[in-house]
C-alpha cells in the first residue's frame, strides 16, 4: 500500500516553512486534521502532564493528599485513575511516591487504550508491544493483579525499562517475553483480550520529539502500515471467540490507523466497539475509503483533547 501524498500548494509550502515540517506531512494534515492551524501551533507547545494512580498500591485519595502536601496541584480527568498535573514544584518523576510505584507518568490517551480494553480479574490477556510497560502495568492494575498477563517486547535494550516498571508498580500477574509479537503463537495460548499498541511513525509525539517533523518519509508510513497489518493478523488469530483486540498507535497517519482496522473488518468477522472518548475515526482519506464502522474508532489531537496524538480502535472478534 503506497502512502497517500498530495501535490504541493501555496498553503502547504507556507505552513511547512512556518512550523518547520516536511511539506508532504503538512499537506496531508491539511486534508484530515480539524482546525489544522491551531493544531500546528499546539504541536510546538509542551505536552500536558498526566499521572495514573497505581491502585494496586495506593488509593487515589491518599495519593492526592500526599502529593498536595508536597506542593503539587492535581485535577481529575475523564479517566478515573488519571490526574492532570496543574502545578509541579519539582519533577513529578522524583518524588518518593513515584519511586514507591504509587503512580505512573502516562499520557491520558495512552490510559484510554487500556480503559477501552477493559481488562477484568482472572482473564488471560496479552500486551503485544509492551516496553516501557506503562500500559502493561495499567492492565495488571485493572486485572487486580490476578489471572495472567503476557507482555512481549522485541527489543532487548528496552527490557530493562519494562522490568523496572513492573517491579516498581508491584505487578505479579505478568510474564514478560523478549520476543517479536509476530512470534506470539509460539506460546500456544489464546487470550480474552489483546492490546496491540503497534510500532509506528510516532507523528503523535512530535511535541516530545520535534525531530519527527522532518525525519519521517512516506516510505516509513508504508513500512509501518505493512508491519502493523502483519501484527494485527497475528493478534486476531490469538483471540478467543468473543474476545476483543484494542489496536492503538501514536500516529495520525490514516494508513497506520483506519486502513489497518479496515483490513481487519474486511478479512475477519469483526465489529468495532465505540469508545466514549476522542474524535471519530476517518471513513476516507484521499482515494482511500474505509469501512463505515471506522468512524467508531477514536482519534486524539493535542489541540482538541489536550493529549498527545493517539489513535484507538476496539475490535470485537465474533
Amino acid at each position, binding site marked *: 500500500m503506497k502512502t497517500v501524498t498530495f501535490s504541493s500548494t501555496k498553503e502547504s509550502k507556507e505552513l511547512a516553512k512556518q512550523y518547520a515540517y516536511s511539506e508532504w506531512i503538512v499537506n496531508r494534515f491539511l486534508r484530515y486534521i480539524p482546525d489544522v492551524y491551531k493544531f500546528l501551533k499546539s504541536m510546538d507547545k509542551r505536552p500536558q502532564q498526566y499521572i495514573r494512580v497505581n491502585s494496586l498500591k495506593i488509593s487515589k485519595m491518599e495519593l492526592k493528599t*500526599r502529593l498536595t502536601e508536597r506542593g503539587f496541584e492535581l485535577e481529575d480527568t475523564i479517566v478515573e485513575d488519571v490526574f492532570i498535573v496543574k502545578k509541579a514544584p519539582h519533577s513529578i518523576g522524583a518524588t518518593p511516591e513515584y519511586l514507591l510505584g504509587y503512580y505512573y507518568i502516562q499520557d491520558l490517551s495512552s490510559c484510554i487504550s487500556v480503559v477501552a480494553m477493559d481488562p477484568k480479574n482472572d482473564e488471560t490477556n496479552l500486551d503485544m508491544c509492551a*516496553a516501557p510497560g506503562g500500559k502493561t502495568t495499567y492492565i495488571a492494575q485493572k486485572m487486580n493483579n490476578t489471572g495472567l498477563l503476557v507482555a512481549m517486547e522485541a527489543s532487548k535494550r528496552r527490557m530493562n525499562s519494562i522490568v523496572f516498571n513492573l517491579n516498581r508498580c508491584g505487578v505479579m500477574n505478568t*510474564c514478560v517475553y523478549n520476543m517479536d509479537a509476530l512470534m506470539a503463537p509460539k506460546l500456544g495460548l489464546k487470550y480474552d483480550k489483546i492490546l496491540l499498541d503497534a510500532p509506528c511513525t510516532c507523528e503523535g509525539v512530535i511535541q516530545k520529539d520535534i525531530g519527527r517533523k522532518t525525519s519521517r518519509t512516506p516510505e516509513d508510513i508504508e513500512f509501518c502500515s505493512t508491519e502493523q497489518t502483519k501484527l494485527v493478523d497475528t493478534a486476531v488469530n490469538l483471540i478467543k471467540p468473543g474476545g476483543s483486540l484494542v489496536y492503538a498507535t501514536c500516529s495520525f497517519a490514516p494508513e497506520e490507523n483506519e486502513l489497518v482496522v479496515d483490513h481487519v473488518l474486511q478479512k475477519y468477522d469483526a465489529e468495532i466497539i465505540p469508545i466514549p472518548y476522542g474524535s471519530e475515526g476517518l471513513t476516507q482519506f484521499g482515494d482511500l475509503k474505509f469501512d463505515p464502522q471506522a468512524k467508531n474508532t477514536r482519534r486524539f489531537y493535542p489541540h482538541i483533547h489536550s493529549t498527545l496524538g493517539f489513535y484507538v480502535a476496539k475490535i470485537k472478534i465474533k
Partner: protein
Amino acid sequence: MYRKLTREERTILNRFFGKWDLFDYFQHKNLLVKEGKVREIFMMTGDAKKLALNKDPYLAGIKLCELRKHISLSLEGAYMFAKNTNKKKIVVTDQAEALVLYGRDIFGQSIINHTNDFGENEIVLITNRYGDAIGIGRTRYHADKIQKRRVTVTNIADRGWYLREEANFEM
C-alpha cells in the same frame, strides 16, 4: 530459567519468613527460583507460575529476594515485608526520607520511631512515616543504644535506585 523451589530452599525461606513473623503470609504464595549468577526468588500469581514453568519468560512476577550465603531482600520484597510485619523497622523523618533516597546513611536523630527487636549489625526496614519501605539498612547499634549524633543505620539499598537506574534505560 524459572523452576520450583527445592525442599532445602523452601526450608531456608520458611525460616527467613518466620524470623520476620511472615511465615503464614508467605505459606501459600506462588514462589519460583530464577537460576542465574545468583538464585533469585520471584513471587507471582498461580497462572503466571504455570506459564513461567512451561515457557521460560524473561521476567515472571516480582523479585522478592536473592538466595546467597544469606538471603538478601529486594526493594520490592522489603516493601511487601514492611506492609505485613512489625519486626525490625525504623521510621525516619521526612527530611531523612529524602536523604535516604539519595543513598545517604541515617543519623540517630532522624529516627522518629523504631521497633525494639534489633541488635547491632542487623538488617532493618527503613520506612517513612506512612510505613512505606523506602530502603533496607544495616544497624550499627542495638535498638536501645541508638546514638543521636552518629550514623546509626547504614543504607544498603534504597528506592532512589529506581531514579538513578532510570536514566540508563531506553524507554
